[in-house]
């Protein structure tokens, strides 16, 4: 092409980034990598090697080790050995290592960027300007947390050995998101990079060597899903952190259910991108480009569902198409390319299949006229219109550069469409009106909301999802908590395994045989279920006997079944207006509840004494009054924060209620434990279905009188007595329940966690350990409130 010709056509020519240094690095390693275990490169025990290729050319870049259970075991052992010495270092010493990582990443930024682009297929602009700078930022930020660990997280210690499994879409960035907080908190790590993109993780292993990181603190085991499975299954791993598909997330939840492994999941999404008619449409179009055509759309938080207000729908679509024509798809190492290659053939195939299916279902597919490179894995930017919420392409994550669009008329309709998804990772809202933008942001079910922007990330701002997009946050203070546990917890005694107090066979006959002994109890006392603010007879039509400590019968409790739970969840779900009540209003109700309990203390204590003894009953009721006051106090004080990421922006980290809670209560302190669990949930605006302990379910009779006299709206707390094991399973399986707290024996914890995978609800259990419900240090406060809320980060860039 002569200069004169180009002068006429004014085309962009090729502008390839030089890959020489990265290739040299590969050659230095003979293009073959073992696992990085205990500061050493180790050959796989038995698994052999597999190839990793450049998706833009198909050329093999290197072969890497296929990890199996033996390799994982070696890595976990190395991490376990390293744990003590690593924790014995001062926080400052650990901060020094994280700082060195940040510096190393900066010093070798271009080599890492090129390597990432070659292995993953993402454009060099993105790896150079977005991925790698964010990696460095993450290590800097967490060098800070490491330094401040003891001041900022007193009473907490590291989980221990952490197993981390990361995806292929942001290989080194996801590594940083995982490793930085883990090390800052004092854990040691076994990390498995994705099979398609192991190279930058291996380059990072070298960085660990270069900075003299103690052996075993970071271990990298490469391999495919089987390697990940082995890591998840390893008994000596204390926590699993996973980013990837919702499907695999479910499997991991299930696989770890019977263990005390802490778990955080960052999963899929189908994030809405909402454009109002008063938005800057041209900027919104660029937002879409940064949303769905970032990283070839292979982004869990990609704005893949475009919702546009009717009045500007046509204009927006026209602008979008015009913009799509100027997107350049091509060699990822080309510095003037917008869209690079798709990571692997199977992903490309999936995109094609889903788009074809969408078109068959009636979608209109539009793609720009620009051509794709002949060689390599590419998919053009794609716009699907004429789709509906019922379309598969609207509900399912395509994980490619494919945008689906729908229109809406009103703000409420926009919110309804946006929330009509099983996911809840992120959302974008475009409007020039702060009223519209913040109103919508507050109503979206998503862990991150970007106002007039999209795909902003920062180490200081937690990232993570609602609903089936996972749980736990990465980044910021909340991200640190994922790698910490209260120090007292691991020393807490294990509860004995209990069989149900009410067994299937016994309850009826015993109920019959005990009739005589009720005769001397005065008037029959009737305790019913409490659902939607009303007393309700159990659906089963059965009751079960409740006994005093000395074995004498003291009354009968309704025997709840799955239908009672169904009704209670319905009531709790309908009562979610409670979340919109002001914090002051909730505080007032709780204070009043404290007052009323205080009035009725003697009577409640007297009844309770028959089961737990006089002394404990006195103590339970008096502490209960205090506890109610504590949460009345907390209701308007457990507040969010404002982050200041490095741009002109405020990020509002809102503590939002999670939704409908199932709370299954332990027997140790029938009244106090129940209140200790229910109160933080409702103080934060959740609604609750509570299963009291089988030991003293009659407490619900006292409680609903208390609630009724304290102006607590109906449905905010629902009480269903019955068999804990049965009812907790129904709650854990219920897709309209957003979180389950289970406190009881270890088997029960496992059961609840395993049953929670349907909608991947958040679970919190005592892992079979005994809480001291009388000790406020253990039984009330921030830890409970953290579990009762989820953080929504609302990014609000500003500037006129």
């Amino acid at each position: 092409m002569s200069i004169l010709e180009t002068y006429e056509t004014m085309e962009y020519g090729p502008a390839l980034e030089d890959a020489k240094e990265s290739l040299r690095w590969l050659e230095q390693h003979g293009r073959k990598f073992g696992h990085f275990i205990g500061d050493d490169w180790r050959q796989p025990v038995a698994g052999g090697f597999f190839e990793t290729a450049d998706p833009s050319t198909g050329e093999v870049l290197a072969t890497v080790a296929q990890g199996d259970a033996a390799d994982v075991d070696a890595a976990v052992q190395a991490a376990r050995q390293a744990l003590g010495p690593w924790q014995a270092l001062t926080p400052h010493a650990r901060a020094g290592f994280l700082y060195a990582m940040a510096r190393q990443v900066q010093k070798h930024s271009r080599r890492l960027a090129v390597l990432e682009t070659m292995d993953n297929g993402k454009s060099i602009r993105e790896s150079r300007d977005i991925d790698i700078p964010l990696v460095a930022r993450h290590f800097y930020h967490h060098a800070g947390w490491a330094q401040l660990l003891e001041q900022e997280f007193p009473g907490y210690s590291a989980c221990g050995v952490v197993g981390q499994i990361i995806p292929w879409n942001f290989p080194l960035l996801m590594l940083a998101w995982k490793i930085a907080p883990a090390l800052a908190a004092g854990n040691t790590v076994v990390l498995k990079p994705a099979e398609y993109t192991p190279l930058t993780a291996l380059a990072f292993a070298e960085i660990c060597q270069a900075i003299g990181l103690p052996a075993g603190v970071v271990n990298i085991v490469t391999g495919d899903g089987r390697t990940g499975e082995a890591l998840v299954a390893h008994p000596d791993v204390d926590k699993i952190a996973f980013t990837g598909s919702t499907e695999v997330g479910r499997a991991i939840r299930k696989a770890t259910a019977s263990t005390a492994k802490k778990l955080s999941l960052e999963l899929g999404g189908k994030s809405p991108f909402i454009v109002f008619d008063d938005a800057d449409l041209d900027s919104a179009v660029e937002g879409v480009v940064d949303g769905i055509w970032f990283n070839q759309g292979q982004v869990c938080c990609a704005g893949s569902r475009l919702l546009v207000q009717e009045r500007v729908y046509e204009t927006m679509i026209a602008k979008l198409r015009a913009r799509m024509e100027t997107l350049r798809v091509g060699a990822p190492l080309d510095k003037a390319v917008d869209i690079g290659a798709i990571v692997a053939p199977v992903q490309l195939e999936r995109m094609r299949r889903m788009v074809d299916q969408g078109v068959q279902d009636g979608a209109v597919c539009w793609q720009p006229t620009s051509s794709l490179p002949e060689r390599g894995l590419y998919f053009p930017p794609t716009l699907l219109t004429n789709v509906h919420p019922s379309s598969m392409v609207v509900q399912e994550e395509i994980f490619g550069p494919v945008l689906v669009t729908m229109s809406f008329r009103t703000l409420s309709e926009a919110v309804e469409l946006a929330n009509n998804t099983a996911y809840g990772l992120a959302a974008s809202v475009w409007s020039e009106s702060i009223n519209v933008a913040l109103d919508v942001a507050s109503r979206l079910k998503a862990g991150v909301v970007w106002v007039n922007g999209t795909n902003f990330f920062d180490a200081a701002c937690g990232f993570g999802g609602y609903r089936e997009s996972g749980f736990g946050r990465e980044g910021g203070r909340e991200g640190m908590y994922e790698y910490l546990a209260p120090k007292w917890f691991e020393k807490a005694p294990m509860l004995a395994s209990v069989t149900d107090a009410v067994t299937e066979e016994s309850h009826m006959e015993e109920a019959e045989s005990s009739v005589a002994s009720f005769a001397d109890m005065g008037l029959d006392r009737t305790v019913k279920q409490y659902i939607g603010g009303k007393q309700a007879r159990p659906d089963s039509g059965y009751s079960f006997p409740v006994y005093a400590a000395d074995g004498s019968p003291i009354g009968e409790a309704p025997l709840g079944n799955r239908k009672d739970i169904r009704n209670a969840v319905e009531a709790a779900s309908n009562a979610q207006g409670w979340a919109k009540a002001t914090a002051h209003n909730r505080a007032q109700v709780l204070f009043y509840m404290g007052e009323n309990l205080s009035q009725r203390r003697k009577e409640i204590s007297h009844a309770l004494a028959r089961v737990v003894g006089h002394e404990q009953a006195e103590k339970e009721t008096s502490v209960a009054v205090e506890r109610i006051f504590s949460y009345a106090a907390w209701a308007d004080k457990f507040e969010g924060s404002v982050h200041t990421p490095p741009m002109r922006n405020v990020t509002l980290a809102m503590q939002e209620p999670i939704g409908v809670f199932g709370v299954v209560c332990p027997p140790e302190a029938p009244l106090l434990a129940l209140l200790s669990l229910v109160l933080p949930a409702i103080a934060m605006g959740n609604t609750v279905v509570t299963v009291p302990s089988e030991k003293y379910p009659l407490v619900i009779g006292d409680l609903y009188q208390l609630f009724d006299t304290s102006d607590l709206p109906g449905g905010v707390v629902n009480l269903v007595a019955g068999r804990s094991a049965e009812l907790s399973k129904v709650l854990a399986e219920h897709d309209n329940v957003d979180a389950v707290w289970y406190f009881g024996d270890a088997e029960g914890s496992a059961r609840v966690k395993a049953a929670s995978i349907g909608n991947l609800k958040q679970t919190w259990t005592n892992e079979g350990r005994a809480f001291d419900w009388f000790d406020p240090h253990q039984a009330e406060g921030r830890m409970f409130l953290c579990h009762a809320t989820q953080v929504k980060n609302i990014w609000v860039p500003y500037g006129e």
Partner: protein
Amino acid sequence: MTPETIQERGFKRHLGQQAEQNIRQDGTQPAPNRGTPLTLDWVDDIRANTSAIERRAQTLVTRRTVKKEWQAAWLLRAVACTDLTTLAGDDTAERVRRLCAKARQPLKPSLVEHLKIQELGLTVGAVCVYHAFAETAVRALEGTKIPVAAVSTGFPAGLSPLAERVAEIHRSVEAGAREIDVVITRAHVLGGEWQALYDEVATFKDACGSAHMKVILATGDLMTLRNVGRASMVAMMAGADFIKTSTGKETVNATLPVGLVMTRAIRSYTQQTGMAVGFKAAGGVRTAKQAMEWLFLMKDELGRPWLEPSLFRFGASGMLTDIERQLEHYVTGRYSANYRQPLA
């Protein structure tokens, strides 16, 4: 109306979409601007989200680059689109003649030869001077097609009486200026007096006659990007052939975010009227790198036609020297020095 019918309607009405694609893609020149009646809806509809626009401006230039012969070609394109400018209080006739000589021959002959672009007959887009030197420049450029642009209408503040400003235009046109760079009354924009702005620009246009009118918005004085967008739209409706960022005398001159807002306004106007308006970035553009950034912006936001001098200009003086240095580097592989390039 249900969402479905809205969408269907969208597909049936391709007209606007096609127009927009044409602007960007097919390289044909849309019709020159004849202006339209003042349509306040178009003004009200303008939104400009500053943060988002700054982000786009920031990343636009990291998304594009040109290397080797492509870079050389693009640099030549920047030369062709340059209004070689001198607007200093101490300007002299000799300096203007020097400028005109440079305008005729922006690159030294050896460079032209090495680049093999003799047949291009490369000149700059125009020479831009104060009225006082318009005649000098016209004479110095005789025998070329290079137009003389005169800044006018009380440049740079635009605060002299309207009659004076109109008379200025007449005088410059009489002096042979084929392009007139007018300044607007900033107060009209800051006060939202769109009718007044429209009338002012329309009056200028009238006075220009067949001369090409570039409307300087003095964006550095307009305070907000939304004001920039709205002023752009009104100026175009009032018949601007070009809209231009700055006089070069404001504290902030041509910036990419401002350019983005103005080019988007042009796109929107062209889409709605089928008429094209040119864009001129003036002030603060000093390097070859900046020149490339502006060309990327024009190509990606407006398309190929806006890389012609008929629709795009730089107002610059020192930039040409830097471009020459870069071209020399392309030819020799050695970095060049300013003093090696003939002075403008």
